[in-house]
């Protein structure tokens, strides 16, 4: 099977880059700030591939560059360099070569994103159903009755009470807001979903139910996902393969079980040990 997403050499540097940026940052220098020019190397030479229906985990602490990777792939930020190819049925899109209209089209039609902060993913000035409707309307579904039906199906699927679909998500609990975000992201049945720290800050029982939901969805819809988290538990439960990042670099990658059982890099060993 051909991968749905192939990323090569993805690099994102904030500031004026200098020739020393890549040589003088990274885990071995214990920093992502270039001592020569002060630029921040948020991510450097990140490469990986993702199979259809697969869940890939990206793990690291804050500042490791894990969120930068999904933000560039979802076009929230532009990379400094690198290449990413998204294979959609028969067509292959060279993501960073597309113009901004084409990027917005992919974002609205073929990708889904669930942010840690529901404020970024939801419009609180309209109803929960309206949030889903907006995404359906972007996809040219123009029948009010069908939109209502589809929105209530999605909310039912993500365990949001349909009776509350006409309320603003502002009034919802944090866990429920994440469920609405997931329903919204799934509205277009995207083949690729990005999840950025979606359970961070939620109660443990709420976390568990959301993680279950994500797994069920992956089984039902065969959605490929990239899950970004600092939480080893989330990785253990969801991801079949994992990248570990530190100071903008991938320091270890492979099957999740292998990484957890037999971590190679000292940093990963420390992470795994700390949660045992």
């Amino acid at each position, binding site marked *: 099977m051909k991968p749905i997403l192939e990323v090569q050499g993805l690099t994102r540097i*904030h*500031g*004026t880059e*200098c020739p020393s940026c890549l040589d003088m940052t990274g885990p071995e220098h214990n920093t992502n700030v270039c001592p*020569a*020019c*002060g*630029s921040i190397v948020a991510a450097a030479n990140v490469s990986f591939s993702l199979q259809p229906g697969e869940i890939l985990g990206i793990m690291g602490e804050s500042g490791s560059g894990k969120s930068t990777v999904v933000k560039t792939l979802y076009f929230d930020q532009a990379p400094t360099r690198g290449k990413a190819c998204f294979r959609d049925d028969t067509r292959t899109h060279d993501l960073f070569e597309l113009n901004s209209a084409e990027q917005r089209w992919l974002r609205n039609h073929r990708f889904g994103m669930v942010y840690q902060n529901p404020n970024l993913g939801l419009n609180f000035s309209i109803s929960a159903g309206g949030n889903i409707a907006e995404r359906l309307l972007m996809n040219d579904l123009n029948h009010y009755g069908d939109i209502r039906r589809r929105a209530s199906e999605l909310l039912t699927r993500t365990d949001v009470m349909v009776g509350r679909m006409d309320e603003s998500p502002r009034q919802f609990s944090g866990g429920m807001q994440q469920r609405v975000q997931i329903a919204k992201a799934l509205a277009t049945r995207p083949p690729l979903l990005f999840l950025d720290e979606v359970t961070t800050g939620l109660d443990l029982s709420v976390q568990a139910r959301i993680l279950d939901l994500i797994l069920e969805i992956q089984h039902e819809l065969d959605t490929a996902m990239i899950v970004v988290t600092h939480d080893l538990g989330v990785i253990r439960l969801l991801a079949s393969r994992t990248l570990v990042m530190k100071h903008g670099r991938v320091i270890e990658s492979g099957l999740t079980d292998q990484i957890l059982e037999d971590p190679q890099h000292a940093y990963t060993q420390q992470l795994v040990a700390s949660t045992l």
Partner: protein
Amino acid sequence: MGYVAIKGGEKAIDGAADALEALRGGGQPSGPDPLSLDAIEHQLRLLTSRIMSEGGLYHPKLAALAIKQMQGDTLEAGFALRAYRSTRPRLLETPPQDTGQMRLIRRISSAFKDIPGGQMLGPTHDYALRLMRFELAEESPEPFRKMAAQFLQNAPTDTLPDSFPKVLDALRKEGLLPPKPAHRNPAFDITRDPLIFPVSRSAALATMARAETGSMLAIAYSNMRGYGDVHPTVAELRVGYLPVMLPHPVTGELTEAGEVLMTECEVIAMYEPDDTDTGKDAAPEFTLGYGACFGHNETKAISMAILDRALQKGMHDGPANASEDPEFVLMHIDGVDSMGFANHYKMPHYVTFQSDMDRLRATRSKHQERGQDQQEVSHESEL
């Protein structure tokens, strides 16, 4: 009685014009003489200045006429001048003018105690006590007319040079300010080209130069108070007569065609730490804000200079508040646009209001159908 008269608009307009004119006459047969344009231009010189700058036309006589005709309404007077301007073709493009050549009546710097050429306080209200001068209520014409002559008689004549160097040039020499750009883009003409955002700094400056003083002051003040973070120092504020150099119609050589009274203000703000454009090689520099307008109007020039600095920041980093947002600032400071639209709400809106009532009735009846409201009873009676 099914018919309601809707005729009469023409008569009403004529009547309104007559009433307005009657009030302009003061309403009394033994009232004062009509204002002379000369009196307005000179005795209300700051008002004339304001009208010329907001009207976007340097013409003291026409500005005075507009003030007289509009009975002192600054927005209407600026507007009349602008409308007149619409009828005039543009005959040529003015090349950039050198304000270093201004014949100054006032120049100050709050950045330096000593500036090349010296500070010159000139005519200003700044340190005048705002006490009512009751003696002006009954002024006799003889001493009034002699005031200017006496002032000039006593003034030293030989100490003033024709022009003064700019304060900023000294700072540039020290390298504290970025050098003037070698290449100058052609100026944006807001009277010929529409503003399409994002706009150039030139377009922003041109829009502000003819903006309504109060509107611009309000937005600049929001920045000064904390909805923004420009902490300006007035490097130089100068008021004076700028020689206008135009290409000679035959030789093409720049020739002085006349002079215009201008106010110019340059503010310096602290440099912005910048993580994108300046590498470690670029030394920190001050940043600049520029304001200039026709006539003597210091409030406007200072407000403009602060907003110019704020807008440059907004254009560069994205606006963090209203005064840094080019669209917010430039679309809301034009007196002609804003006062016209505020006043248009007085016009009939029968049709749209009919349409509003239709929607309200429809949604209320739906509301009733839902059984959520039992009190809704229509009292409509029909003839």
